[in-house]
């Protein structure tokens, strides 16, 4: 494959065409990409005066510092055997119904349980899905997060590469989780993973995605979840990027009649992260939980912007975002509950809790409510505080040194979110990432005591 250097080193319409050609895509996808590129050019760069950008600055971010894609990823990456070892080690931590491993958007390991495949479950990378299941992809791709949702979503759609496509047919219930590992191995490259999960009526599924790598990189991702009526969808997004990466994400979930969704984002990595998560409850009986975990260190800046849209009656949404902050790091949480006219009997909760482990860290919480129905129950709250000295003294009086006492309290602080994750394997995997973030072996966190009784293995 020969692609002119200039077209692959700068973001441009030519680069969009070159990427589409490299991926050997159908015409409709190229058209979509070019439309998105035009949106990207039209949407102004955030200036910091927009409400969503007031507390998160893009100073220091230069798009021209990144390559839009890596054409020769095959030859540039380490030997596949090496990679496979790394990924197998990651994957071994979780017993799953299927695994998908990608690097720089290219899938190179993929497994789907045979019996699930026979039932019509599709679990593959999105490029394969575009070729093999065009109707399903066209029905869903960019249908929830529009091409012009924001500047970074537009850029994403112009240059998207790689991602997970998971489809579960009617009444198929998958107990084991699916797992995706998405890596960026090339320093200074842009990454654009896209996730689509569809559950048909009465189906049930769990997907856990792990994003990592991306040294001096930048990532603009999109996640679209499509639970069908009366289905159950659990999605866990673990953001473990290198601390030199700029991360932007737009995630959206549309929940129909009697469906239930649990969406969890764990933001551990990146230099700066700005993620929009929107939950639309569109038919009666829809239920959604939005969960968030973050632990920021050094100069990290993590910004979550959530929206709970109650568009129909008898729906419930429950949001809990908990973060611990160290050093001079900073978190921003902006959350909005909107109850539309006619959405009676709405139950909506929203809580953001922050634990400041350092007097220099800062957590901003901006909750908001807009209620246009009269028979609703809505509560929201935000807190930020340090570990009470009495907690530390109590634990120290039992022989724990201060770092151990702090780690135990932070792990306990996150537990309130973890206990809402009903899949034990996913919970264990999250605990492992928490332990990594706390710089301690997961065994030393001692959480196995708690898990022991509900572990079937």
């Amino acid at each position, binding site marked *: 494959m020969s692609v002119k250097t200039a077209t692959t080193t700068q973001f441009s319409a030519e680069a969009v065409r070159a990427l589409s050609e490299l991926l050997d895509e159908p015409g409709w996808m190229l058209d979509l990409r070019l439309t998105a590129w035009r949106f990207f050019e039209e949407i102004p760069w955030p200036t910091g005066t927009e409400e969503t950008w007031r507390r998160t600055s893009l100073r220091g971010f230069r798009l021209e510092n990144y390559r839009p894609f890596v054409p020769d990823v095959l030859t540039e990456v380490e030997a596949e055997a090496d990679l496979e070892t790394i990924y197998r080690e990651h994957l071994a931590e979780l017993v799953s119904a299927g695994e998908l491993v990608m690097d720089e958007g290219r899938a190179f390991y993929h497994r789907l349980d045979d019996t699930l495949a026979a039932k019509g479950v599709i679990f593959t990378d999105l490029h394969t899905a575009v070729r093999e299941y065009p109707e399903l992809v066209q029905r869903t791709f960019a249908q929830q997060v529009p091409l012009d949702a924001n500047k970074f979503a537009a850029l994403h759609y112009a240059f998207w590469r790689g991602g997970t496509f998971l489809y579960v047919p009617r009444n198929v219930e998958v107990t084991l989780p699916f797992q995706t590992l998405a890596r960026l191995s090339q320093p200074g490259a842009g990454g654009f993973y896209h996730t689509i999960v569809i559950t048909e009526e009465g189906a049930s599924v769990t997907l856990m995605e792990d994003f990592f790598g991306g040294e001096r990189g930048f990532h603009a991702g999109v996640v679209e979840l499509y639970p069908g009526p009366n289905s159950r969808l659990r999605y866990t997004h673990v953001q473990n990027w290198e601390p030199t990466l700029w991360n932007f994400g737009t995630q959206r979930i549309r929940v129909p009649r009697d469906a239930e969704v649990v969406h969890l984002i764990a933001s551990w990595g990146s230099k700066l992260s700005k993620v929009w998560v929107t939950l639309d409850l569109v038919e009666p009986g829809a239920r959604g939980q939005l969960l968030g975990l973050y632990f920021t260190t050094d100069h990290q800046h993590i910004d979550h912007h959530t929206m709970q849209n109650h568009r129909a009656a008898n729906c419930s949404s429950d949001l809990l975002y908990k973060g611990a902050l160290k050093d001079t790091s900073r978190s921003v949480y902006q959350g909005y509950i909107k109850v539309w006219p006619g959405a009676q009997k709405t139950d909506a909760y929203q809580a953001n809790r922050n634990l400041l482990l350092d007097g220099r860290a800062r957590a901003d919480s901006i909750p908001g409510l807009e209620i246009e129905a009269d028979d609703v129950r809505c509560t929201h709250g935000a807190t930020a505080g340090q570990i*009470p*000295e*009495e*907690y530390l*003294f*109590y*634990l*120290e*009086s*039992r*022989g*724990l*040194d*201060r770092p*151990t*006492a702090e780690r*135990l*309290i932070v*792990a*306990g*602080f*996150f*537990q*309130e979110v973890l206990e809402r994750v009903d899949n034990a394997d996913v919970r264990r995997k999250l605990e492992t990432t928490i332990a990594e973030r706390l710089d301690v*072996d997961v*065994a*030393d*966190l*001692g*959480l*196995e*005591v*708690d898990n*022991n*009784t509900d572990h079937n293995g």
Partner: protein
Amino acid sequence: MASVLEIRDLYAGIEGQEILKGVNLTLRQGEIHALMGPNGSGKSTLAYIIMGHPHYEVYSGDILLDGESILEMAPDERARAGIFLAFQYPVAIPGVTVANFLRQAVSAVRGYTAQKDEEGPVGSNLIPMREFRKELTEAMQLVGIDPSFARRYLNDGFSGGEKKRMEILQLAMLRPKFAVLDETDSGLDIDAVRAVAEGVNRLVGPELGVLVITHYQRILNYIQPDRVHVMYDGRVVLSGGPELALQLEEKGYDWVRQQFGNAVKA
């Protein structure tokens, strides 16, 4: 040889306000002492200072464990040296289970560290799960705590009596040389006091020295002290045998005030 905890002419306070004004007290391993006194006499301050609470200041005097000063030691070091405080108001720590907390504490106090081979540490720095579970089950039985508490969050939503029993469970697991029980009977009804006292009685023996701090005599109906001390205005003003507690019960603290109030003011 039995260990000795000695409080020697201790002057201490908080934010420049002197509360302890020359406390002397010696406790040997295997002995039970009661420290009684009216509210505000400095009993709880003494308990906190023995454990090393960072808000309190020691102006002069010393606390010696087997002849070595512990004043420079952090609370966790004191715990590892064999000192234990059962809190009057134990804190609740949401998200941290009783079992995990105790496993961490037992491992720290007993100095567990991971085995190492050429490639680094093998296993964890915690007491092995099997061993720990067995010990915890036994200790819970001993102090009368339902096994289901192991998975509950530490003191979170516990009743007053459950919190105090949890303190005694920790005492059972950590096996210190000296335990200070700070108003362990306060806020409990008589059944709860008896239950907690029974737990303590199962733990006493030649390996444990206990200082029972209490306002009321009633807990001493269940825990028999070898010595009774009366604290008033920052000093131990009276010491005697178990009969002293009964005398106090009869005469009340006004009797102490009348006897020692003037002397202290001077």
